[in-house]
C-alpha cells in the first residue's frame, strides 16, 4: 500500500458528484466558487474558475452519451486549486488513461476547451467518445 503524506500546504480536498444534466452545471459552478473563496483568489480569478469548471462539465455532458454522473474533485493548497472533472466511465479505472497536455489542443474540440486553456494555468484532458471525458486543471493564486 502506498501512503502519501499530504503536503504541508494542503488545505483540503472536496469531492462532488452531480447528475450529468445541464440543470446541474450551475451547482458545480457555485460549489467550486465557494471552495475557491477559501483561497486568496481575486474576484476575477474566481469568475475564471467558475467558467472553466462549467465548461468542463458541459464537455462531459455533450460528449458522454449515456453517462449518468460527473465527478468533480477539488484539491486546495495555499497557492493553487486543482480541479479534476470526470464522467462516470472513469470510475474504478484509477485515472490511468493518458491525458493530452493542453498545448496539443486541436481545432474542432470546441470553444469550451479553448476557454479553459485561456482561463486556467494548466490543463490536461482526455475527450474520447469511448473511454470517457476527463479534464484536470489548475489555477494558481495570483498567477
Amino acid at each position, binding site marked *: 500500500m502506498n501512503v502519501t503524506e499530504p503536503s504541508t500546504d494542503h488545505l483540503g480536498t472536496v469531492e462532488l458528484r452531480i447528475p450529468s444534466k445541464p440543470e446541474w452545471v450551475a451547482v458545480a459552478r457555485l460549489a467550486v466558487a465557494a471552495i475557491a473563496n477559501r483561497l486568496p483568489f481575486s474576484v476575477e480569478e474566481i469568475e475564471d474558475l467558475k467558467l472553466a469548471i*462549467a465548461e468542463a462539465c458541459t464537455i462531459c455532458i455533450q460528449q458522454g452519451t449515456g453517462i449518468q454522473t460527473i465527478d468533480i474533485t477539488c484539491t486546495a493548497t495555499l497557492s493553487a486549486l486543482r480541479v479534476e472533472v470526470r464522467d462516470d466511465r472513469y470510475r474504478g479505472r484509477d485515472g490511468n488513461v493518458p491525458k493530452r497536455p493542453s498545448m496539443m489542443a486541436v481545432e474542432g474540440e470546441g470553444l469550451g476547451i479553448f476557454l479553459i486553456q485561456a482561463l486556467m494555468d494548466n490543463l490536461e484532458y482526455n475527450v474520447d467518445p469511448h473511454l470517457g471525458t476527463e479534464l484536470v486543471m489548475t489555477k494558481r493564486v495570483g498567477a
Partner: protein
Amino acid sequence: MDIKVHVRESDDDAYVVELGGEIDVYTSPKVKDAITELIDQGHYNLVINLEKVRYIDSTGLGVLIGGLKRVREHGGTVNLVCTNPQIKKIFDITGLVKIFGIYDDEAGAKKALA
C-alpha cells in the same frame, strides 16, 4: 438559476433582444429559440442587449455566433450591448470582439445597424 428574455421592436426597424441572468448549457436553448424566432419572421438586424447578463459560457457564445451567421446570410447583422468587464473579457479571449460589434449602450448598437 434564471434567464430572462425580452424581445421588443425599436423605433428604427431593429429588434432588441434583452437578456438577463445567466446563459449556460441549461438556459441557452431559450435564448436560441428567441433569436431563431425573430430570424424566421424575417428580422435580420438585431441588437442583443447583454447588460443584465451576469454570466455567459461557450454554449451562450455559440448561440450568438449561430444567430450572426444566419442574419448575415440575409445581409443583416447582430450588434451586442455589453458593459460587464468579465463578459467583455470572454469576447476578448475568444476573438469574438472582431466578429461582433460590441457597444456600451443600446443607442450606439442601434445606430451602428443603420
